[in-house]
C-alpha cells in the first residue's frame, strides 16, 4: 500500500489505502451509513457530499453516531 494516506480519525492517527472519497472511507471502515455524521477538517459534511469529497493526506475526520444518553 505505497500510496497510503495518513488520516486522523476520531483523534487517532490511522493509515489507510488511497481512497477516492469520504464515502469510500466509510465503506473501508465497514461503517453503516445510517445515522452517522462526518466532519472533515472541522467542517460537517452533508450526507450528499460524502461521494464527491476526496481525501487528502493529514485530513482530520470525525465520525459520530448516536449512543445511549439522557
Amino acid at each position, binding site marked *: 500500500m505505497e500510496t497510503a494516506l495518513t488520516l486522523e*480519525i*476520531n*483523534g*487517532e492517527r*490511522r493509515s489507510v489505502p488511497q481512497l477516492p472519497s469520504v464515502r469510500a472511507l466509510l465503506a473501508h*471502515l*465497514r*461503517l*453503516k451509513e*445510517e*445515522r*452517522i*455524521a*462526518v*466532519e472533515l477538517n472541522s467542517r*460537517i*459534511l*452533508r*450526507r450528499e457530499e460524502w461521494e464527491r469529497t476526496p481525501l487528502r493526506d493529514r485530513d482530520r475526520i*470525525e*465520525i*459520530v*453516531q*448516536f*449512543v*445511549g*444518553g*439522557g
Partner: protein
Amino acid sequence: MTQGLPDDALVLAGRSFGSRLIVGTGKYPDFEVMREALARSGAEMVTVAVRRTNLGDKSGGNLLDYIDTGRIMLLPNTAGCYTAEEAIRTARLGREAGLSEWVKLEVIGDEKTLFPDTEALVAATRVLVREGFIVLPYTNDDPIVARKLEDAGAAAVMPLGAPIGSGMGIQNPAHIRIILETVSVPVIVDAGVGTASDASIAMELGCDGVLMNTGIACAQNPAAMAEAMKLAVRSGRLAYKAGRIPRKMYASASSPVDGVSR
C-alpha cells in the same frame, strides 16, 4: 379512556406527542432491558447522545437496533458539552446524523453538579434557532433564564427538578410554578425525578411534560419503573386538569353528620 387522552397531546413546535413522558437511553443494564422499558414507558420521544463512533469494536450491537423509530422520535442531546461552541457543533452533528432539526440542548457548567451554564445556553439557543433548529434547552429553575430562552426562540424550556441522576425530586416547586407563569412555551421538567410521585408532582404543578433517564434506567426493575412513570405522568396530568380540592387545616366529614342512629 386511560389509553386515549387524545385531546390532551403534548404539542412541541407544532408536532403532537401522545405521551408527555420523554425518556433517556443511557445507563440501562443492557439494550434488551432498555427496549422493554421504552415500550412500557409509552414514550414517543427518547434522547440520545452523539459520540465518536468506536472504529475498533463492532460488537455489542447498535443502540438504534433496539429503538422502534417508527413510533419513537430520536432527540439528540449535547450532553458533555461545556461551551456554547461545543454544544452548537454537537447539535449540528446530531442533525446530520439524525436528519432532524430537533435537539435537546445542554451546555454544562460544572462536572460535579452538571448544572447548565445558562449564559452560554441562551447564546447557543439563539444561534441554533437561527439555523432552523427546534431547541429544547435543559436549564436551571430560574424564571429569568426561562424567559430569555423563550425570547431566544426555544420550543420549550426544560428546567431541572434536581441534579441529573440525583433522584431527589423537584427541589423547588415554587420556582417551577413561577416559570410556568412566566413563559408561554411548554415547560418540561428535565432531571431529578427519582420515583413515580416526583413525576406526578411535576405534572400537578402544571408542567407539560417530564424527561427522565436515571430514575428508570437505574431502578432495580427498569421496565416496571418505566410503566410506573407512564402512569405517574398521566395521573399527575389528569389530576391537574381535574382540579384538586383545596388544602385545609381541619377535617371535613365525608359521611353525613346527621341521621346517625343512636
